[in-house]
C-alpha cells in the first residue's frame, strides 16, 4: 500500500493497493483478447467510442481537476485546463481514426501499398507532473490505431487516472481494452516492460529511468516512445519585446512549479539587454503567488514530494548569486518560492542538469553563435524559445537549436495537432499530432501481383 499525500497539506488522501505482480499475466491476456475484438469493430464504432470518452471526461471535469490538484498540488485553474485538454485529445484522435493511411508505391509487376497495423498491447507509463494529460496523449492515439492500453500512473499520482478508468466504464469499451495498474515503477513498471505480450512502451519521466526502460525493453525488442528530461533555453535578443519576453519566460519556467519537462530553466539574454531583462524578469516573478492550489489566484502550488523538494533545493548552493522575489508559503507542505540564479558559471549544475523545480538560471551571451552553442551545450533537446523581432535571426536560431520543439516570441511547447518529442537524450518518438499515430502502428507492405 502506498500513502498518497496531498503536497499542499501533507494529509494522506488515499492508500491504493499495488497491483500484485502475479496479476500482470492475466491483465496482459485480457488486453490481448480485447484488442482482437476492438480492431475488428467498424471504424464508426471506434470513432464513436473515443468521442464518448471525451464527453465523459468533460462531464466529470471538475472532479478530475480536483483530484489532480489534491494529488499533484498544481493550481486548480491549471488542472481544469489539463482535463479540458484530455477531452480535446480524445476528440482529435477520434477524428484521426479514418484519416491515417498508407501509400501506394509504384513497382513493377503489380500493385504495392502499405497499411498501418496496430501493435497490439501497449503499456503507457505515465509521469507525476501531468498525470492524466500526458497519459491521454498516449491512450487516445493508441486506441485510435486499434491497440489495447495498460496504463501505469506514477506511484505518487494515480488518483486522476484511477478516476478516469472509473468514469469511462460507461463508454462500454471491450472488456480489458483499457486497464490501469498501480504501484512502483521498479516493480509493476518493470513487469510490463519485460512482458513479451506487451508490444510497446510509452514512457514519460526522467532520462535516467528512460534508460532503464530502454535497456529492459531490449529483451523483447519492444517499440518505444520515450519522453524524458529537458534543459530547455529561452534565447532573448536585445531587439525583442523585453517586457513580454520576461513575462512569458517566468511562466515558461515556473509553471507547474517548474515540474515540467519543457521548463525553460535557462534564459540566455544578449549581454546589452541583460540588466534590463533581469529587472523585468524579477519584477514579473515577484508577482507570482505561491500558495494554496485551491485558490484561484495562486500561480504556483507546492512541489510534489518531500524527496523532490530536497532534490530541487540541493541546486541552491552558497556560491550562487540568487534572487527570490516572491514570498514562500510557510504552512506545512512542500513549498518552494521561485529562485533566479544570476550569471552562474556555465559549468555549474544549475546550468547543466535538469532541475524540475522553480529555479531559473539567467546567463548573458555575446553573439548569435554563442547563444546557439550555449543553448545546445546540454545532453537534452526537448523545447525552447527564441525572442527577437528579426525574422531571419529567429529562423536561423530556431533551426540551429537541437531541440524537438521551439517557439518564436512565445513560450508554448505543446499543441494537440503538432508533434512533440525530444532530440538527443530528451527521448525518442513523437507524441501528439498525426505523428503519434506512427508510434502506435507498424507499417505493413503488401504487394499484389498483376502477372496472373
Amino acid at each position, binding site marked *: 500500500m502506498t500513502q498518497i499525500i496531498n503536497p499542499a497539506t*501533507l494529509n494522506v488522501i488515499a492508500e491504493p493497493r499495488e497491483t500484485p505482480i502475479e496479476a500482470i499475466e492475466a491483465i496482459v491476456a485480457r488486453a490481448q483478447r480485447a484488442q482482437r475484438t476492438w480492431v475488428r469493430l467498424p471504424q464508426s464504432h471506434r470513432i464513436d467510442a473515443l468521442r464518448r470518452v471525451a464527453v465523459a471526461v468533460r462531464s466529470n471535469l471538475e472532479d478530475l481537476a480536483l483530484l489532480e490538484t489534491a494529488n499533484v498540488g498544481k493550481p486548480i485553474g491549471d488542472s481544469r485546463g489539463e482535463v479540458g485538454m484530455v477531452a480535446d485529445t480524445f476528440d482529435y484522435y477520434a477524428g484521426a481514426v479514418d484519416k491515417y493511411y498508407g501509400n501506394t508505391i509504384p513497382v513493377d509487376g503489380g500493385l504495392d501499398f502499405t497499411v498501418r497495423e496496430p501493435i497490439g498491447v501497449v503499456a503507457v507509463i505515465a509521469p507525476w507532473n501531468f498525470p492524466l494529460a500526458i497519459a491521454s496523449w498516449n491512450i487516445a492515439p493508441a486506441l485510435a490505431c486499434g491497440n489495447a492500453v495498460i496504463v501505469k500512473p506514477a506511484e505518487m499520482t494515480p488518483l486522476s487516472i484511477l478516476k478516469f478508468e472509473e468514469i469511462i466504464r460507461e463508454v462500454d469499451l471491450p472488456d480489458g481494452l483499457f486497464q490501469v495498474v498501480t504501484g512502483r515503477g521498479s516493480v509493476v513498471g518493470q513487469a510490463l516492460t519485460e512482458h513479451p505480450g506487451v508490444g510497446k512502451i510509452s514512457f514519460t519521466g526522467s532520462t535516467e529511468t528512460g534508460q532503464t526502460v530502454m535497456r529492459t525493453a531490449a529483451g523483447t525488442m519492444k517499440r518505444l516512445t520515450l519522453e524524458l528530461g529537458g534543459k530547455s533555453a529561452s534565447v532573448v535578443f536585445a531587439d525583442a519585446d523585453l517586457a513580454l519576453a520576461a513575462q512569458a519566460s517566468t511562466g515558461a519556467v515556473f509553471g507547474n512549479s517548474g515540474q515540467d519537462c519543457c521548463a525553460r530553466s535557462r534564459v540566455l539574454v544578449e549581454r546589452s539587454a541583460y540588466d534590463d531583462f533581469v529587472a523585468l524578469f524579477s519584477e514579473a516573478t515577484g508577482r507570482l503567488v505561491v500558495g494554496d492550489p485551491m485558490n484561484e489566484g495562486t500561480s504556483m502550488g507546492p512541489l510534489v514530494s*518531500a*524527496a523532490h*523538494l*530536497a*532534490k530541487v*533545493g*540541493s541546486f541552491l548552493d552558497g556560491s550562487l548569486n540568487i534572487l527570490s522575489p516572491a514570498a514562500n508559503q510557510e504552512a*506545512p507542505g512542500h*513549498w518552494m518560492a521561485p529562485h533566479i540564479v544570476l550569471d552562474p558559471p556555465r559549468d555549474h549544475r544549475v546550468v547543466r542538469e535538469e532541475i524540475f523545480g522553480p529555479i531559473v538560471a539567467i546567463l548573458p551571451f555575446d553573439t548569435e553563435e554563442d547563444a546557439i552553442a550555449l543553448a545546445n551545450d546540454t545532453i537534452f533537446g526537448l523545447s525552447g524559445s527564441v525572442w527577437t523581432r528579426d525574422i531571419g535571426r529567429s529562423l536561423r536560431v530556431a533551426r540551429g537549436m537541437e531541440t524537438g520543439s521551439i517557439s518564436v516570441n512565445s513560450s508554448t511547447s505543446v499543441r494537440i495537432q503538432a508533434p512533440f518529442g525530444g532530440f538527443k537524450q530528451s527521448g525518442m518518438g513523437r507524441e501528439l499530432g498525426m505523428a503519434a499515430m506512427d508510434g502506435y502502428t507498424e507499417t505493413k507492405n503488401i504487394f499484389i501481383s498483376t502477372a496472373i
Partner: protein
Amino acid sequence: MTSHPLRQPARPQLDLVAGEWLEPAEALGGAIDDPNTGEPLQDQRATREDTVELALRAARGLHTTRSWADSPLEARIALLDDIAIGLAARVDELAYEDAMATGNGIRTTRQMASYIGPRVSSARRQLVEVGVAEDLNQGGRPVRLLHRPLGPAAILAPWNAPTFVAVAKVASAVAAGCPVILKPSEWAPAGCQIVAEVVHESLLRTGLPTDVFQMVHGAAVVGSQLASDPRIRAISFTGGASGGHAVAIAAAPHLTALQLELGGHNPAIVLPDADIEATAAALIEGMTKLNGQWCEAPGKILVPANIHDDLVDALMVTMSSLAIGHCLDDRTDVGPMAYRLHRDRLQGAINELVTAGGSARTSSTLPDLGGWFLAPTLVTGLPVDRSLRELFGPVVTIHAVGSVEEAIRAANGPETGLAGFVFGSEPGEAMRVAALIAAGEVRINGCKLADLADASEQSFWNSAGIGGHGPTEMVRFFQGRQIIGVDDPALPI
C-alpha cells in the same frame, strides 16, 4: 498469570550508526519489563564504546563537510515534512510503546502520540521563521547574519514522555542543521526505535546524508561518553536532577552548549476564594496526568487552614473515581509506574514523609496484576518545610497555611523553578500571586499540559534546568550566530 491480549513481543532495540543498523553489544544487567505484570520482556542493552566513537566520528565528519550544515532550507523542510508524515503513519505503534514504557494509560499515550508528527511540523515552522541567513545590508555594504548549526548534537531523552521529547529535540536539531545522535532512556528505547526507523527512511527517501541522524543506547556511561566528547557541540538533556548535574559536569571542560530540562517540586497555591470542587478536579488531573510522572505536575498544595479539610475531602472524592488499571486498557486513568525501581523509590519517599509525621491517604484499590502499581496518594499533616523534593509520581503533599503571603513564601522552595499553579476566583489577585512564584510557567485554575498561548515562553528557573521553551527557542538553541560583512571606514572606532 496471563498476559494482556494486546501485548506484543518486545521491539528489538538497535543502534543506528553511520547508516547501519547494529545490535547494541553490551548488556546493562537489568531488564525492561511489562510494568503491568512485572514480567521481564527484554534485556537493557548499551552500545559499545567503540561504536559510540564511530557515531561521533560520523557526526563530526558530516559536519566538517558542511553538506548538511550549509544545506538549503528546502532540503531541511523536505526532510521534516517527510518525517512528520512518517510518524503520523505510526501513531498506534508509538502509543503502544509509550504506554508499555511509562505505564501511562493507552488513552493518554495515543493522544500524546498524535502530537508527535505535528511537533516535527512545529520545528519546521520555527526553522522557516528563524531562517538560515538574514541580509542586514547597510547602504552599499553587504552585511549578512548567518544562523549556523553549532555542530554535532547529542539528545539524551527521558523515559516519562520518551518519544515526544526525543522527537521534539531531534526535529529541532535537524532543522538547525546539526548532525544528531539520539540516546533514548535505557528504560524506554522502543518508541525511539520507531522514530529512528522513520527518520532513517526519510533520509534515504529524500537522498540526504544518513549521518544526519544516528542512535545509540545505554545509560549513564554512554550518556557521559557523548556529553564529555569535544566533538559534540550541543547537548539537550531531559531527565532528573542528578543526571542533569552529571551532564553539566561532563560538558563543562569543552564549554558545550547545554539545554537541561530537569524537574521541579511544583507548588500549587489555593487562594481563600477558590472554588473547592473545581480546584480538586484540576489538581487530581494534574497529579495523575502521565501517572504523575511529568515534570510540571503539581507537587505540594498550599491551602488556607480554614478550607484545608474541605479541599482534602474533595480531593479524596475525586481521587476515588479514578480507574487504576492495565496501561493497555482504554478505561485506565492511572496505570502502573514505569519500572520497579521508580515505584520503590516513590513508595520509599511516601514512607519517609509518613515517618516525618505525615499521613498518607489513598482511596483506590490496586489491580491484582503483579506490576508496579502505586495508588494515587495525598500526604497531609506535614509542615511545608518537610516537603522540599520532587516526587515524580501520583503523589502530592498538602499543607495548611495561615495567609497568602505565607503560601507564597512556602511556594518558593529549593526545587521550585519549573512550574506553579494558583487557584482563585478573582483573576487579578490570582495573576498577582502567580507572578510571585519563581517558576517558568504558572497556570491559574488548571493543570493542563499544552502551552497557555502560541507565543508562550518560559525559562527553566532555579534548579529546573538551563534554557527554556519558546516559539523559536528550540531551533535557535542548536544554532550559533555569525555576522559577516564589509567594514565601514566611516565608523568612528
